């Protein structure tokens, strides 16, 4: 074979796969070349004669089968081993059986070490070990970062399978992203992010920027933490990294977080981040933190008790903070009720077109002490001819029945946060 064993040609239009391959090969003896279409890949393969070709099954201008066929038809490329990148091994094995050059299959998602081993085998080398740069992050830190990244982006990752279906590609297996965030990937990702983070930190803060911990961590190193009620039940249901487990075993309601961090050789910032996660998971309580304020109620003026008031009360009750509903019979009483119970939201049925509905809204809006109370008008029908007047009177939203509970919830959440 005249091919250059250290050249690897990747024919794949996916930027993600290309990045992953590039990261996996970084620091090894392999030189990686990329082609993002079948035509470009064939041209490069003929000119470059790489030691191995990594080929995606689906390309923008042709299929993996077409590319394999053309590689096999050309004397210059016939003997180059091909590794097929595919999510469907079994089907691919049948389809590509005819090509002797297809020596192996790389499943999606793949890990860097697996890819290196397969490439090494394909070019007749023993599995090449990556030149190991000194690790900047411990395994624990990688695991924790992977968990945090996955938790924060879970909703986004969850959308990917449906997008893939729409684009005609194969949806990845459930939790593909979690499997993708391997320690090897996280090591490189953290390197990149740290550099970026350092750049950002080096830049002067934007004018008027508030002094907020970028990670949203409110637990301080001086906090004294204790186990939360229901700890034993909850801890069984939560997956924890080994450092988190070590922190958890030392929490005793007496020592500060900084003391505990010192005992396990952990820096304060990491300890606070871990403790915050454990607090968020309901496992720990900050003994020094002020007790949470009781949830502010929702006030409602709505004649439909059976169809509207009761289901709303039950939906509010099912929220984590179990928010109460205060029902008022007459809109004339709403201003006094708002002053009395300090609600986060007032819902008023405005179908009767009573001047008092708009009058009440104007009175409430005139009181600056009630500026954080949201006002929502509900209409029995889809006739919205008085919506403009209601908005002018100070209502934040005018909704027609049947309304979606989420449309009310968005006025509850900010108040709850306050």
């Amino acid at each position, binding site marked *: 074979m005249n091919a250059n064993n250290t050249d690897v040609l990747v024919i794949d239009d996916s930027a993600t796969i290309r990045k992953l391959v590039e990261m996996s090969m970084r620091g090894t003896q392999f030189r990686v070349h990329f082609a993002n279409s079948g035509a470009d890949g064939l041209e490069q393969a003929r000119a470059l004669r790489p030691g191995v070709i990594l080929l995606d099954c689906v390309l923008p201008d042709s299929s993996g089968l077409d590319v394999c066929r053309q590689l096999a038809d050309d004397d210059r490329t016939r003997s180059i081993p091909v590794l097929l990148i595919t999510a469907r091994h079994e089907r691919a094995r049948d389809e590509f059986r005819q090509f002797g050059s297809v020596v192996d299959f790389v499943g999606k998602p793949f890990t860097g070490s697996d890819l290196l081993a397969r490439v090494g085998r394909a070019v007749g080398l023993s599995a090449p070990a990556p030149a190991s740069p000194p690790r900047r992050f411990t395994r624990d830190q990688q695991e924790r970062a992977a968990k945090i990244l996955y938790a924060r982006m879970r909703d986004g990752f969850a959308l990917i399978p*449906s997008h893939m279906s729409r684009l005609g590609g194969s949806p990845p297996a*459930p939790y593909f992203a979690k499997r993708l965030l391997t320690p090897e990937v996280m090591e490189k990702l953290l390197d990149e992010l740290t550099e970026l983070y350092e750049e950002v930190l080096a830049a002067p803060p934007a004018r008027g920027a508030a002094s907020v911990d970028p990670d949203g961590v409110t637990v301080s190193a001086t906090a004294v933490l204790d186990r939360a009620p229901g700890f034993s039940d909850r801890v069984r249901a939560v997956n924890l990294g080994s450092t988190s487990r070590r922190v958890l075993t030392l929490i005793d309601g007496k020592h500060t977080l900084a003391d505990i961090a010192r005992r396990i050789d952990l820096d304060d910032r990491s300890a606070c981040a871990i403790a915050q996660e454990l607090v968020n998971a309901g496992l720990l309580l900050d003994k020094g933190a002020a007790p949470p304020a009781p949830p502010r109620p929702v006030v409602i003026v709505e004649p439909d008790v059976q*169809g509207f008031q009761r289901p709303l009360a039950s939906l509010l009750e099912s929220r984590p903070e179990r928010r109460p509903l205060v029902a008022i019979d007459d809109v004339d009483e709403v201003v006094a009720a708002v002053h009395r119970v300090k609600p986060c939201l007032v819902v008023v049925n405005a179908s009767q077109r009573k001047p008092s509905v708009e009058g009440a809204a104007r009175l409430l809006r005139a009181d600056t002490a009630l500026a954080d109370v949201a006002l929502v008008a509900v209409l029995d029908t889809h006739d919205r001819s008085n919506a403009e007047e209601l908005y002018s009177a100070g209502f934040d939203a005018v909704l027609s029945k*049947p309304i979606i509970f989420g449309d009310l919830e968005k006025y509850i959440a900010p108040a709850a946060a306050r």
Partner: protein
Amino acid sequence: MSGARVVVDTEQLDGGVVAELVSACARAHAEMVPWRQAQPAADRPPALLVGALRRGERRIPAELVDAATRLSNDVAILLMSDEPLVRPVVSTHGGRVTLLAQPASPARIRGTVRMLLAQRGEFRRERLDNHVWTAVLEPADHEPPPPAIRQDGSGALTAVFPLIRGWSGAEPLCEEAHGIAQTPIEEEERLQRLVELFGNAAGLIHLSASCRQWSVYWPTTTSPLLLCSPLRLPRLSNLADAAAGQVLHLTASSGDLMVALSHEVPIAIRDDIGLSLSDGGAAFLDQVDTKLAAGGAVPSGLVVELR
């Protein structure tokens, strides 16, 4: 048995739940296989894998993911949660994973299995995709003919629902109606074109691409058009009055259930409908089937559920 295979984690699930699953599988002519006895079968991959999701767990148990991967690449997964969730039924991972919240009534459990099996469970008038489940109620002889349904690649769905007996335009006019519903035109023109197309002979239910909005043309108040959702207030509304004289647009929301019926039903039955609709569209169909088996008359109908 040649029907669909349903693999169930009988060891982790509560006995009462397993009993409902047995009943649901029997109705669907599906074979229920205990998970740890299930072997991959290329010719008959399982249609559904049912497992448990313990309180506090926010991830699909790894064992279940491995089983799903081993048994079939595209098996649907139903997880019986131990706790209440934001909705009684939550669909994730592009519709592949369905979570059933507590409390789940027997009707809800049976209905969810029916919905997830749909045509694979030999419910030939029922269709399931990533975001929408549709079902047609078989009309009796004296009822208007069945509705025509058109769904395009973007997920946008249009159903033309005949409102008068003997009208046969649903199927031929469905494509044109789909175009009118989707075209960005003035609302008056849209109404005008639908009036010209259907007059009083048919209604139209349209769900936009990405399932963001319902649009309804419903030229009668005698045929109910019900919108039901546990996350709407009120939970059950008849849109027939509100839709008079306009093309009605409403924001769509997961859990929405739109039910079109060819004629008004007695109050007692409507209460039943309201009750069974609270358990989902498939539970409602179960109830309709029961009424049919008992010799009761049911109107011609269409059910569209947004997952």
